[in-house]
């Protein structure tokens, strides 16, 4: 097992180029900037996700170095929590709640039409690079169900029509 951890290499890792080193710098800064007294693998991953909107594979190594964990451990945490993404999202992130409150108030129609206008079948990235659709289990504003969020701005009492208008206007 030890040997496995030691030899753990990321297949397809990009060659060390200047651009790559810049990315690593940004990652290192994001991790170091954490203001909370308790810094863990999870908090470092969250800081990276906040900075980039996803977890670049270089971040796994940088976080492992910074926290003293193995890259395996960092992957373990990153793959567990559902908010971590491993590809760069498109320009705008559209989250639609599919929890029971929003579901009975009409979330399925919103998801269907939003996916259609983005040209995708469900969760995922639109081809034009404009929007990324994600499902969310609870956006926290259930009294205004159904709720969607576009780039962290919440919109309540949505209808499929209003949501499509908002997405089109992005």
């Amino acid at each position, binding site marked *: 097992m030890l040997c496995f951890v030691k030899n753990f290499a990321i297949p397809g890792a990009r060659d060390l180029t200047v651009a790559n080193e810049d990315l690593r710098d940004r990652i290192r800064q994001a991790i170091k900037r954490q203001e909370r007294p308790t810094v863990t693998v999870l908090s470092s991953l969250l800081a990276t996700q906040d900075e980039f909107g996803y977890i670049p594979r270089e971040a796994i190594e940088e976080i492992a170095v910074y*926290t003293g964990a193995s890259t395996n451990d960092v992957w373990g*945490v990153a793959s567990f929590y559902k908010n971590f993404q491993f590809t760069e999202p498109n320009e705008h992130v559209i989250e639609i709640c599919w929890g029971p409150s929003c579901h009975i108030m009409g979330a399925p129609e919103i998801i269907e039409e939003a996916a259609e206008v983005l040209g995708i079948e469900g969760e995922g990235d639109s081809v034009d690079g404009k929007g990324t659709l994600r499902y969310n289990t609870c956006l926290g504003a259930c009294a205004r169900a159904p709720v969607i969020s576009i780039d*962290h701005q919440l919109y*309540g009492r949505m209808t499929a029509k209003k949501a499509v208008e908002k997405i089109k206007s992005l």
Partner: protein
Amino acid sequence: MFSYDELKGTADQRWKDLTQGDMPWIRVGTEMNGHAAGGFQVIDAIRSELGARNIAAYVDEVGTLGLSYAEPIVDVLKPGRRSRLLFRDVLVDDLPEIIDKYIVNDSVPGNKAFAYLGEEPIQGVPDLRTIPQYGMQQRVAMRNAGHIAPADIYQYIANDGYAALNKALFEIGADTVIEEMKASNLRGRGGAGFPTGLKWSFMVNSPGPIKYIACNCEEGDPGAFNDKAILESDPHTLLEGMLLAGFSTGASNGFVFIRHGHDGPIDRTERAIEQAYELGILGKNIMGSDFSFDIEVSLTGDSYVAGEETALMESIEGKRSMPRFKPPFPAAAGIWQKPTTINNVKTLAYAPQIILNGSEWFSGIGTEKSTGTAIACLTGHIAYPGIYEVPMGLTIGQVINTVGGGVPGGKSLKLLQTGGPLGGVLGPDSLDVKIDFDDMAAAGAIFGSGGLIVGNEDTSVVDLIRVLVTFCQYESCGKCFPCRLGMTQLLDIMERIARFEGKPEDLDVCERLGKTMQIGSLCAHGQLGFNPIKSALTHFISEFEEHLNERRDPTGRTSTKFFSPKATRPYSEDFREVQPLEVISSL
């Protein structure tokens, strides 16, 4: 370092300026529901409209009065007035009229004026306390919500804030705090209903010096938002509750555990902590006593199971939030193996009022065995969705019909979904059940997180249960195989039934899976994972039979489309490349 009296003096002066000064005080509801209703756009527009008219005013973001259906609520206190005038459903376009008519000219614009709150009646609008959505509430944990600005610690202090801490530190001492908490009969509001005073007393004799108080605001339950609302409306109440818990149990550090992405609660809690440090209410030698305590915010990723207390500790340590075996219990070995007490936000928010007003006052509210209030989040097909803090012992029917205004559109109530996805569903016969820990349990329901989702006659039970089972499957952490595999099987079966392709033996298989999950899972997620289906079979078996036998849904649902996350753990193509198995085979 300031003493309590110095702080109170400054706070009272500031409060006087706000409420009796010569500038209007405008408050806007910007809790998450207010945010979703456009509260932040409204507050920005108010600032610019006032600026354009050269009107000086205090403008504050506040939390929620509980009336989420009326958000964004704009609440104006004019100089020389003893009552506030509230406007409801305010849009940016309404603001010029509100400002010109009410703030400049003193006439009440009819359009969006909602109610007044205070001693002096305002012509043309009702008293907010005569509106049942507010009048039926008895606000203890949420007493300041919607009234004070969460970003201003002095507004909290002016409203008896940190008085309980002062009383505990300098008058009554740690032992009496625990005695009072025990005597108040406060039971934990996280779901299990364990007596809080007793829980605190377990920690007193645990060895120090490092002991932790963790406050659980993971609140992943869809349909519940009261914990987040407390943090957004009045974070200092929570800090004071944690300080009381810390002082009485001899703890040294506190964690406020919030889900990443809920920016409002996170920002406001962090700001509150910062202010408390500035004034010496947190840190070393609090308010000049020899008690020291530190609090920080700890964020978790999206994981429902992280709300389970041992999984929460794993998450604070930065690991996967998977439950631990018990024993050892948290009071003996918790976060980083140090003694830990974990309380829900609501539980801790009651503590300052209990210490300040006495246990007898608190146990006088509610019922004998479930003292205090219940904070219900009403959502779904209901006329007035919102967060209502009502005394324990009201019936579910009273809360839904009187406070929530019943089911709108002349439809009838068909089902209730209580206590988060694991709580399952209830039928209309449950409206007579009293909201307290014992009556709810006897009726086979959980009050849990306080979420009450109402479904009208058009709601398809099978469709809703499929959502709940999908949620439980999606959120299973995967540690215990009965839960991990059982939920997946249950979801397969539910999807089949909902697509009108169910097999005759399906319900029996569900039953057997449910039993295995209950016996073989470590935490409530697996133990109660079958609950949504079980409760639905109890109350709505005929709908399942109709799906199975006649291949149709009694509500007329014909679509078999269903949108839900596809994988239990989403992973991208990119990530699949580095699955460990492939790495091993490439070595």
